[in-house]
């Protein structure tokens, strides 16, 4: 590959040097003035070039959609993701139409109305009716897109999700920990001042809600199929972002704040392996907010299990109540302040 690059560089430089020679020569031929014919010839070439550029460009666009399109994300593995993908496709359809139409018109006009001998432009400074038409039509189309988009947004982030399982996703430079709330479905309180090697989440073991909490120690999280999961995100040090591309889900982790996102997984890892025809397929959780030098390594495998397998797996995780007890900090009154964002 280095050779290829070198080749490209050398070729480029050679072309450049050659061009410079030509310029120098042509400006040295003193007294030579471009004639009108020369100009028109140049103009024709430029216009033709633009036309060819448009045709080839749009052709390549179609080709890229065809070739790359099949390597994008597989079918959404979450419930809301399916309707989000539909919405995305509607948007793409409209965008694609406008893209093709306007680019074709632009380059077609550029070619068709190029200067030729004796041509005169048409003095046409304004037309109110046209202005109104092309203000109103985009307004209508955009209104439809806004309304359909916001409907999804409300369903995803503003609806009341009862019966959801509470799970904490905790990020720090450069790894993840997941905590499950256990039978009471309440995440016990935590405090960043309690963090030690034995207590990486800073859990307050004196909180009764803590006794059934468990958290992961390996670089893997499991979630059960078909259950709405309400993620609470917390960061230890800097902002991170929990990005689950296959579930069409993302939320930032902000120090000092609880943030939330919930989704319902609908396809197990096993099933997705069949759908993608890829034995080794795995879901992934990626950090998607620059968080330091090793940001690009901050990833965790996500496994969607059947609820039974999930239960078995959870039992094997580390129990919060096994954390060596630390002095309770509850008195200090700075525990788990619900600093929810209202800014």
């Amino acid at each position, binding site marked *: 590959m280095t050779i290829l*690059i070198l080749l490209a560089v050398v070729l480029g430089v050679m072309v450049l040097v050659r061009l410079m020679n030509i310029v120098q020569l042509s400006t040295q031929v003193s007294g030579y003035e471009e004639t009108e014919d020369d100009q028109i010839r140049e103009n024709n070439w430029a216009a033709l070039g633009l036309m060819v550029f448009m045709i080839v460009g749009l052709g390549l666009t179609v080709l890229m959609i065809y070739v790359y399109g099949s390597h994008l994300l597989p079918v959404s593995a979450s419930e809301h993701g399916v309707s*989000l993908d539909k919405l995305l496709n509607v948007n793409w359809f409209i965008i694609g139409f406008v893209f093709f139409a306007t680019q074709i018109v632009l380059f077609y006009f550029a070619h068709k*109305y190029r*200067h030729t001998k004796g041509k005169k*432009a048409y003095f046409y400074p304004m037309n109110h009716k046209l202005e109104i038409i092309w203000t109103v039509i985009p307004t209508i189309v955009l209104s439809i897109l806004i309304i359909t988009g916001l409907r999804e947004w409300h369903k995803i982030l503003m609806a009341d999700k009862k019966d959801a399982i509470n799970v904490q996703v905790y990020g720090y430079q450069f790894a993840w920990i997941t905590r499950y709330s256990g039978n009471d479905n309440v995440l016990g309180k935590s405090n960043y001042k309690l963090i030690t090697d034995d207590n990486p989440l800073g859990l307050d073991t004196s909180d009764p809600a803590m006794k059934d909490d468990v958290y992961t120690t390996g670089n893997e999280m499991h979630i059960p199929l078909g259950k709405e999961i309400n993620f609470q995100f917390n960061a230890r040090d800097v902002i991170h972002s929990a990005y689950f591309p296959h579930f069409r*889900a993302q939320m930032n982790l902000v120090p000092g704040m609880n943030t939330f996102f919930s989704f319902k997984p609908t396809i197990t890892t096993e099933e997705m392996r069949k759908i993608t025809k890829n034995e080794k397929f795995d879901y992934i959780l990626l950090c998607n907010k620059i968080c330091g030098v090793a940001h690009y390594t901050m990833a965790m495998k996500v496994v969607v299990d059947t609820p039974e397998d999930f239960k078995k797996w959870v039992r094997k995780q580390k129990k919060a109540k096994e954390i060596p007890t630390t002095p309770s900090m509850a008195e200090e009154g700075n525990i788990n302040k619900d600093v929810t964002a209202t800014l």
Partner: protein
Amino acid sequence: MEVKNTVTAEHVHHVDHHDDEHHHESFWTKYIFSQDHKMIAKQYLTLAIVMAFIGMFMSIIFRLQLGFPDTKFGFLESVLGKWGKGGKLDPGFYLALVTIHGTIMVFFVLTAGLSGTFSNLLIPFQVGARDMASGFLNMLSFWFFFLSSVVMLWSVFIETGPAAGGWTVYPPLSALPQAMPGSGFGMTLWLLSMAFFIVQSLMGGINYIVTVLNLRTKGMAMSRLPLTIWAFLITAILGLLTFPVLLAAVLLLVFDRSFGTSFYLSDIFIGGVPLPQTGGSPILYEHLFWFLGHPEVYIVLLPALGLTSEIISTMSRKPIFGYKAMVGSLCAIAFLSCIVWGHHMFVTGMNPFLGTVFTITTLMVAIPSAVKVFNYLATLWRANIQFSPAMCFAIGLVSLFISGGLTGIILGDSALDINVHDTYFVVAHFHVVMGAVATFGMLAGVYHWFPRMFGRMMNKTLGYVHFWFTIISVYGVFFPMHFVGLAGVPRRYYANSAYEGFDYFLSVNQLITVFAIIGGIAQFIFLFNFIYSAFKGKKATQNPWNSTTIEWTSPVGPGIHGNWAGPTPTVYRWPYDYSKPGAEKDFIPQTVPFSETKSSNLPGEE
């Protein structure tokens, strides 16, 4: 008739000579500490071009890493020293390069380079003023820009490396030196440099606004201003309203870094210890940053659109379609751009209801933008187009503006943004709609007004070659990048090794890198043409593009003090009387009164 207000070449010489004797201009006052808007414009342009090449060089280095993550490039070690040990780019330095590349391109090249160059050059020329309202402030503004550039470049050479938290420098990452090496002294320099930059931008902005509002020549009503001037005016107002907010954000960050305050910090455990700060919010910084950050996009975009409007109209030999709608849409875009910043924060944990509001305002920006595109298309309809290199770039700009604007519809939709936020889709989008459009506007402007700056023409053939290489490589780099993003590949990643699912896109990344290199090399064609033509180019004629605006009535050549030897020209009409039926020629300069064009006057024009 249009010679009325122009001066013959001999006369110019005489005046020039006379002037020289009078002022005893030394090299220093003429070229370095100049207060002449024409010289300051050239200073801005020169420094911006230097910065652009540095920014481009950085992008090529990190593109090599993205395209060929497993290849060792021996030259990296000799160029970067410890950051390129063994021919491998250091991951921390990768982020530093991305950060400084972004900062340089957005602020130093496209903000200072566009407004600084063309507002300075064209505002006095096109409104018929002898110079900027305050030449001294104008000079200071350039030197603050220079200082700011020097500090930014200095930061690249320090021990711990430059700022590396991304051009948005979100705290806590940027506030805590423990978080990454780039958040040490490099970050301090970044903040210092930005503070200087904001100062230069405010000084420049005030000058532009005052000059446009107060120093217009006789007859130059606001409704007769060329669209370039409208764009510069609105840009300057926008900058004046939003840059101070960035300064506030930067200052608070300085306090958090150095004086133990907690504006942005709360509940942080890092480096094995809990920090004392509580009660701050990183989200506050994001709000403050994007309150400038989004309008900033339009601060680089609007001047480019202004230049393009002028070039498209002139080279189409046709009035710009819908002058009033163009001014109106400029104002609407500028206004809306101040209330959409939250679309950068849909998934930050901001209250989802705010997301709703920002989605609505954001998608509303698409309306005036669409109007602009349709007006450009209508201007081209039944035109008589002369493809100068400037016009080629202007057409390319419209094409890129369409491509980049449309993907904004996806990103502006809060629900759809969830899955593409911070992926390469965003990188592709903003490079097309901001980076490429503004760059094309700038290049078009340089080709078009080069004769006004240097009194010489740029070489046309080289111009065409430059254009073709540039547009092909811009699309070659950024079009495939959309697909990389749609596949879920995050931005600001040193390598995509964390997930096998991304392996397929390595080949796409290679393709992108190859185009980036081709595009980068092509810019040397421009550089050569620029330098060569400035000294040896063909001498320009008085009005090389047969333009109506009054900058072409000032003496040919680099220009004289005060711009016009006699009184400043009087203006009688709007700037777009191209191909008016009944007129002798296909353009009527703004300086020609209606009484002399009886045959072409429309009803109402006496």
